[in-house]
């Protein structure tokens, strides 16, 4: 297994957010995490990335315990695509993607021509080569998301963790991001994403984990895990799951009839 978390407990400082999480993801797989707001998805991700110290259990990358990993060691294995970035200065899109090389550049060194070439490839892979010279602060939300995904690619990771990569994107950009995610898995990377739309899990995930109040309540293939019953239990609203022939996969939608409140 590329990433193996066993009986993981996580939270901020002394505050416990979740526990008992056991999950794994291997190269070529997309693991999709679903759960209501505030169930601990982001905290779990930060723990998987080593940004928060784990409170219990074990976390292994390629069979190696991560407790003693440096930041750069983590970053060479796992790339993170955050929901929003905090660049307050007008760095060019090229420079933002180039930052993905940080874990492979010595602390006191600057990027080489090879780093620039990899950056260029990452931009091309995401189809945003034409944006290279634009200030990151000036581009649209969809273009920003593509830039951050390109930055993760420039990191040359084995695993990409994306926190709600489709949030705040329009319909077309959501579809574009989902198809990139599938192609990353196809090229041998492991991907972990969280989403609020179960249909996205059907669209790109090889496995789905349902999270509630800091624990995993189900994990398995989308078709096995994403049932109207399980989704209703998770979100507290009625959900219809149907196979859509034109798309060639299942889709989910709320029924909008009154159901039991959680």
């Amino acid at each position, binding site marked *: 297994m590329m990433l193996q978390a066993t009986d993981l407990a996580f939270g901020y400082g002394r505050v416990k957010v979740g526990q008992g999480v056991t999950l794994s993801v291997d190269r070529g797989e997309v693991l999709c995490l679903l759960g209501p707001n505030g169930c601990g998805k982001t905290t779990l991700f930060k723990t998987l990335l080593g940004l928060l110290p784990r409170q219990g259990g074990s976390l292994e990358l390629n069979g190696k315990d991560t407790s003693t990993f440096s930041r750069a060691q983590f970053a060479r294995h796992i790339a993170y695509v955050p929901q929003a970035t905090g660049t*307050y200065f007008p760095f060019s899109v090229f420079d933002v993607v180039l930052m993905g090389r940080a874990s492979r550049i010595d602390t006191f060194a600057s990027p080489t021509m090879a780093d620039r070439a990899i950056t260029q490839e990452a931009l091309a892979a995401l189809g945003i080569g034409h944006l290279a*010279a634009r200030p990151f602060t000036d581009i649209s939300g969809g273009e920003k998301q593509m830039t951050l995904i390109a930055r993760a690619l420039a990191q040359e990771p084995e695993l990409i963790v994306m926190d709600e990569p489709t949030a705040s994107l329009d319909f077309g950009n959501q579809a574009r991001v989902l198809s990139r995610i599938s192609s990353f898995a196809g090229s041998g990377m492991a991907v972990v994403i969280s989403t609020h739309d179960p249909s996205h899990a059907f669209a790109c995930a090889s496995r789905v984990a349902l999270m509630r109040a800091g624990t995993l309540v189900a994990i398995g293939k989308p078709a096995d895990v994403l049932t109207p019953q399980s989704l209703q239990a998770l979100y507290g609203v009625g959900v219809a799951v149907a196979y859509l022939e034109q798309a060639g996969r299942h889709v989910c939608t709320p029924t909008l009839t009154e159901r039991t409140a959680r």
Partner: protein
Amino acid sequence: MQQQPKAQRAGPIAIGALAVLLVAIILVAILTGKYPVTPGDILAVVMAKLSGGDSGVAPTIETVIWNVRLPRVGAGILVGASLAAAGAAYQGLFRNPLVSPDILGVSAGASFGAVVGIFLSLSVLAIQGLAFAGGLAAVALVYAIGSIVRERDPILVLVLAGVAIGALLGACVSLLKVLADPYNQLPAITFWLLGSLASINRADLVSILPAVLVALVPMALLRWRMNLMTLDDEEARALGVETRWIRVVIVAAATLMTAAAVSISGIIGWIGLLVPHVARMFVGPDFSRLLPASMLIGAAYMVGVDTLARSIAAIEVPLGILTAAIGAPFFLYLLLTTRRGWQ
């Protein structure tokens, strides 16, 4: 071929142009003053001092050039470049273009140290030493408080601690001003708090030069990492950056520089806030170009303002008044004309 941002391609040219501008302003500064000096005199004196020979220039003029104007211009370069470099580093580190080197209390600490020295009627050297130590101590205290508070945005905690310690030290300075002798000490305190290069000598320059150079080393070495420090802390760490120790090193370097500069010049506001903005307009936000550009502009601005300070009126105008009087309208102009992104 690779598409590169315009600022990136224009960077070396812009930095070269700024260097030429600095040299021109230095020349004007040395030529300006009560005693007429020609460019030939400057060259003759500098060559003579380097070779140990005779300059052939009138002794009065030689003294004016070598003992008065050159040290003063040198101090302007050092102080302006230091404040601007510290400002550029802090604006990146604190991810905020409105940050100045004072944000962690270095000026407040230096003011307190200097005012204590003046209050106790100590020697100039002791006052400078106290200012330097006060600046370092204030920032160390702020940083210690910031490190105790965990599990919150480290940047926010640092800034808030800096504001609080700065206010506390400001109160102490005000108290000492009330208690100070209004005829001897109070004017000296007021002048120190407004900044001046009037009483600079060569020894002052030699005493702060090592601190400034030492502080520049980590900034120059970490120039590319500094770009990542402008990201959200967790984002930068996820990219493999050990933000914690880089922050300590850069804060220490910027504090050392600023404390060294203000220890000989007194408090000079606005340079650290304003100059990095102007530099960013010329070369973009990449720190490897922003640092040299900021230092060149800071040095040129300081030397230019100091030349004005000693030539526009019969008395020396305190630098703090001029930097603010010129800087604030310019800043408002930026505010009104900059579209977005604080370029």
